[in-house]
């Protein structure tokens, strides 16, 4: 699978691009502000009416979904992904065995949105007229509003599937450039309208939920039409980009010029640059490229007080506390990020996946720690626990030849019988190397040598690549689960190295115990992986899912379990969040996380920047 610069992500992007080419008919409104040297993109990747290509009550594209076909085999529809159109023969057994679910017991979603379920809009007519006069695109359409009333938390999607709609924005507005945003914010202040910025809509922190207590008109500010790369500076390796651009478009367009940002969060197909900044996102390849805070050079944000930005593009400054850090992670409470100058890198010459099998999770963690100590982490290194390894295996597509299955059998025999690994304890690290060919091979050897010291065996590129695929399809899989009484969610944390093992064990066990105590009949899936390594600790990602058949209020049970799991994380020295953010879901722990004084500081910034609470999504504080 070693191929120059052909990651699965990029493969996928190409297919997606092909698909979207035909939709270029939806034209971007020409922005009035002239930007010198800008080359407006050829197409509008995200249409205003997103529901035309994306699910209104689930994850991702409408044409891509998992289902169990008539033969009871799992398949993935569509043409966008490597898995698309393939049969996954072992998924059914894994699914039934893990959750005690049955294909006989279906829990289908409401097929269409019933407009009667949606509360009528609470319009601020003067504001709407002002917008019209300013020539900014607006919609009062029910579907448009509902689409922007949620992120992808389990409770949000579950409610949609049941056809339950809570408070939704009263209108949607699509600025097409920075000055449009300035106008909208100014008008919102004048007319006292609540604005909620909306980028990719992939939030998993209840950040997009409209506060129930909000009595003003709520307008969703959709940044998707601000999606141009305004300039690329090859001397300094920076690019100036409008913040509404989504990850895959940014990457594809830079690739065309021979560059990349290297920022690849798992949600990059849908999430936006502005959203990354507002939540302090982290990308899979941060070991080479850094997290979002390392990647941004300059940020422009429109606040009710005016525009905040720095005066130059210097790479580092000592000018008091970095004002960027008021913006990074502000979660839409202070304003709208409109333009960002980002570092870019030439596309790496060579890329290679890899994997290592360890006899148990402890050995795996010890190896990752050593890799971090020696500061030789590849672009990405992740360690899946045994459950997740088996989960990954269930997603193996049908093997095409006798030979492949024979080789698979041999490998399994070698690892479990010859090397004596217990199939119920072994775990797998997946690796991604990037750079010039010679160095990648050298680097690879270094990492495998370290792994060998911890009992690790190289287990091939294929296992590695499949590991990464899991993170892209997991959200689609959740929709499949919800068709059969299985609900699940993921959450993450960051924790010092010496506590990684304890935290993983305790949180997983807490989930199992809480589910049992709350009447969940079948033991839940409770699994984790170490997804990022740092000098002083690691990022740990958990999945948990359970069969909710027989529970009268499954969402409530789920929320209690998730709450307990977060308490357990905090008690074990983990952070409130590594990259998902706080939103409204984790707000209650903010004070204990950053201290009363810390919270007060943030509040006083909010007080100064937005005294009218125009950006009233009530996240974070």
């Amino acid at each position, binding site marked *: 699978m070693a191929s120059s610069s052909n990651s699965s992500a990029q493969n996928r992007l190409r297919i997606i691009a092909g698909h979207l080419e035909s939709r270029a008919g939806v034209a971007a409104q020409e922005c009035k502000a002239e930007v010198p040297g800008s080359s407006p993109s050829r197409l509008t990747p995200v249409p205003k009416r997103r529901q035309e290509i994306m699910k209104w009550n689930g994850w991702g594209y409408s044409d891509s979904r998992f289902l169990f076909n008539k033969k009871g085999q799992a398949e993935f529809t569509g043409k966008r992904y490597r898995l698309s159109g393939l049969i996954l023969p072992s998924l059914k057994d894994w699914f039934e065995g893990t959750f005690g679910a049955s294909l006989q017991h279906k829990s289908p979603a409401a097929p269409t949105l019933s407009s009667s379920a949606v509360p009528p809009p609470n319009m601020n007519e003067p504001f709407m007229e002002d917008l019209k006069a300013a020539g900014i695109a607006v919609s009062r359409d029910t579907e448009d509003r509902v689409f922007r009333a949620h992120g992808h938390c389990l409770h949000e999607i579950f409610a949609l599937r049941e056809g339950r709609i809570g408070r939704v924005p009263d209108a949607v507005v699509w600025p097409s450039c920075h000055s449009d945003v300035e106008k909208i914010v100014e008008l919102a202040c004048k007319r006292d309208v609540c604005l909620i910025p909306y980028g990719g809509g992939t939030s998993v922190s209840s950040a997009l939920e409209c506060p129930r207590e909000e009595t003003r008109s709520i307008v969703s500010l959709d940044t998707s039409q601000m999606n141009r790369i305004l300039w690329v500076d090859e001397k300094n390796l920076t690019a100036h980009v409008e913040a509404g651009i989504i990850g895959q478009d940014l990457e594809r367009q830079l690739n065309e010029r021979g560059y990349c940002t290297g920022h690849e969060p798992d949600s990059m197909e849908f999430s936006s640059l502005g959203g990354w900044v507002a939540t302090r996102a982290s990308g899979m390849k941060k070991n080479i490229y850094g997290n979002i805070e390392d990647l941004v050079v300059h940020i422009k944000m429109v606040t009710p007080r005016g525009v905040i930005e720095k005066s130059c593009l210097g790479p580092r400054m000592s000018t008091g506390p970095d004002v960027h850090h008021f913006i990074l992670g502000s979660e839409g409470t202070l304003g709208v990020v409109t333009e960002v100058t980002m570092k870019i890198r030439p596309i790496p010459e060579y890329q290679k996946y890899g994997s290592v099998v360890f006899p148990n999770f402890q050995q795996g963690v010890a190896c990752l720690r050593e890799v971090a100590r020696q500061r030789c982490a590849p672009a990405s290194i992740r360690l899946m626990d045994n459950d997740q390894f088996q989960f990954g295996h269930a997603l193996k597509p049908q093997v095409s030849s006798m030979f492949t299955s024979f080789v698979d059998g041999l490998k399994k025999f070698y690892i479990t019988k010859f090397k004596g690994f217990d199939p119920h304890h072994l775990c797998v690290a997946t690796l991604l190397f990037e750079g010039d060919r010679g160095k990648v091979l050298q680097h690879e050897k270094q990492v495998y040598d370290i792994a060998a010291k911890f009992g690790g065996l190289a287990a091939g590129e294929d296992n590695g690549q499949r590991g990464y695929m899991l993170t892209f399809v997991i959200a689609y899989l959740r929709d499949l689960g919800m068709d059969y009484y299985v609900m699940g969610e993921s959450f993450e944390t960051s924790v010092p190295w010496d*506590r990684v093992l304890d935290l993983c064990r*305790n949180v997983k066990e807490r989930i199992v115990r809480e589910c049992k105590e709350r009447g969940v009949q079948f033991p839940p899936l409770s699994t984790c992986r170490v997804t990022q390594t740092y000098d002083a600790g690691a990022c740990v990602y958990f999945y948990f899912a359970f069969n909710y058949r027989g529970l009268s209020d499954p969402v409530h049970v789920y929320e209690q379990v998730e709450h307990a799991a977060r308490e357990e994380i905090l008690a074990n020295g983990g952070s409130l969040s590594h990259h998902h953010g706080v939103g409204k879901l984790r707000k209650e722990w903010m004070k204990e996380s950053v201290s009363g004084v810390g919270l007060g500081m943030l509040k006083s910034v909010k007080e100064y920047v937005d005294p009218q609470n125009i950006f009233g999504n009530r996240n974070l504080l």
Partner: protein
Amino acid sequence: MSSRSLYSSRHPMLKKRDDFEDILEERRSSSDLRYALRCYTPTLYKGLVPCKASMLKTIVLQSDHLQHVIKQVSSESGESSECVTEEASHILDEMAHRLQLSTIRFFVFTLSKAFKRLFRSVCVNEEGIQRLQQAVQEHPVVLLPSHRSYMDFLMMSYILYMYDLPLPVIASGMDFMSMKFIGEMLRMSGAFFIRRSFGGDKLYWAVFSEYVKTMLRNGYAPIEFFLEGTRSRTCKSLTPKTGLLNIVMEPFFRGEVFDVNLVPVSISYERILEESLYARELLGVPKPKESTSGLLKARRVLSEDYGSMHVYFGHPVSVRSLAEGKVNRCQHNLLPRHIPQKPSTENLEFLTDAAFRLVRTQEENMVLKPWVLIATLLLQNPDGLDLSTLAKQTDWLRHLALALGAFLDWPDHESCARVISCSLALHRNLLSVSDEHVQLNVADSTQVETTPEEAVFQRAVVVLSCASYRNEILHVFVRPALVAVALQRSAENSHRKDDVYNCFNFLRNMFSSEFILCPGDSVQDFEEACYLLAKRGALQVSEHEIVMSASGQSTLTFLCSVLEPFVQGYQVVCRYLCENVLEKLLEKDFIPAVRNFALKLILAGRLKCYEVLSSDLQKNALAALLRLKAVRKVKVGDQTTLKVNKIAVNSLEDMLGGKIPTQKPILARL
């Protein structure tokens, strides 16, 4: 409040207790040798990290915690870290157990023989065993048996072997080490040895705590230790120590294990092997130093009948649920976990509270034999009772005890008279029965050549032995008895609930070293005792008043006389301090001096209560006076002296005697 319901139901009457099986029954009908050699396959902890006893040492010595302390000690003392490591290694060698199955098998064989001779039956609640089997698999387990006899931990290991449970490692005092052979045998059956005091020795503490924690974290074996710290010589539970409890809870607080299960175990004996030994010890005849030859002499005990024995395995208590809402585990987030940290005030409070509640659970699950009731009655009637009266009163007391929640093992389908005569037969060494009249064995004083002092001591041995059986049931009576005394004290003045409570609270404070009274539970204890007495019909409790009901006289009188020896004892101690101490008193002279004082009173016929001679009571009284700041300890050089505030001591004595009402202003003045 929530965690309390885990292991202490509010109304003891409603408590459901398990049934017992006699484990000796099978032993009497099959080969002990084959039994000792049978296949032993214990259920194991699911997170077990398998390791040999010898590997433990390496793990402990290389642990971050110990390495840290070694460096610290070496930089403070200037010794090389190799030296300090060497020292740590020595400490560990001295401490470590060397659990061996073969030794256990040897013990199983010999103990089977011994137990069959000593005991009529050894009864174990098998449901408790099943719960333990479950608990052992899920989380590391800590066994917390009560401690009344040397037998306790042999018996524990024996039972665990019997039920295919993992054999425990047992924290024992260093005193056994002087018995060379026995010490090594015990070591090989899982005992590890701790010095009795090592206050400031950082290194010792680090080795010790890391050793215990390593075994706990790895699930090496259940840890067993005695919350009370030492054998109770009086059969009353002792105020629990929290040091080891903290050590076994810390891995949970620091997130190193998901949970720890604490299993209180109550071991009760119908007749205690060390019965008269304890009494002598309390009277100041020094305890013979543990020696192998001494133990051999004790062979004599093998020919006697010690009745039956009960072992009750309580419900496992999860430290996690216990600590929920009380301990914030985040407090450890900001310091690397291998750096030792003194427990926070919050944690200390939690520990004390937990320790008290665990001991209370031990008490509540302690099986009481009919003899306990008889002993109580005989002590209250020094001139003895007719058998028929005794039968009547025992029956009455039995109902009272049951109403107050006692866990009484009263044989079904047997007449009261028969039960009593069995009990009397078993304890005939303490009694004299003639002409249908039973009396504590005190008449011997007419024997030849005894000084009056010796006679008093002989009598006191019998009284204290007998009192130790009565003490077994005190935990049932103590709260209602405190109410009864408080009511009696305030009866002349007022029936106001507040006044009764004040007096109750004063007494409760006074006796809090004497009995297990959970700190901070004063109001609850009061309400509960009132409730039980009202239910029994002895009291009428309204919102503001407490009145004794006509039918309650006998109950309340009885309860008052239960506490009487303690009230008198404390008064004597107070009187001694007021009358005889001039300026100050060396602490080490306190007990002999009080004993002499009491002896003189008894000889002069001014005191009838022999229990005053008990050093345990004297120590507890001193602890109370120190706590109430009527006496202060002053350290001068190597010696500790006691400084007595005579006014305060005097007024405490008066309050105890009910001469002055216990009102707040007086308390405040102290």
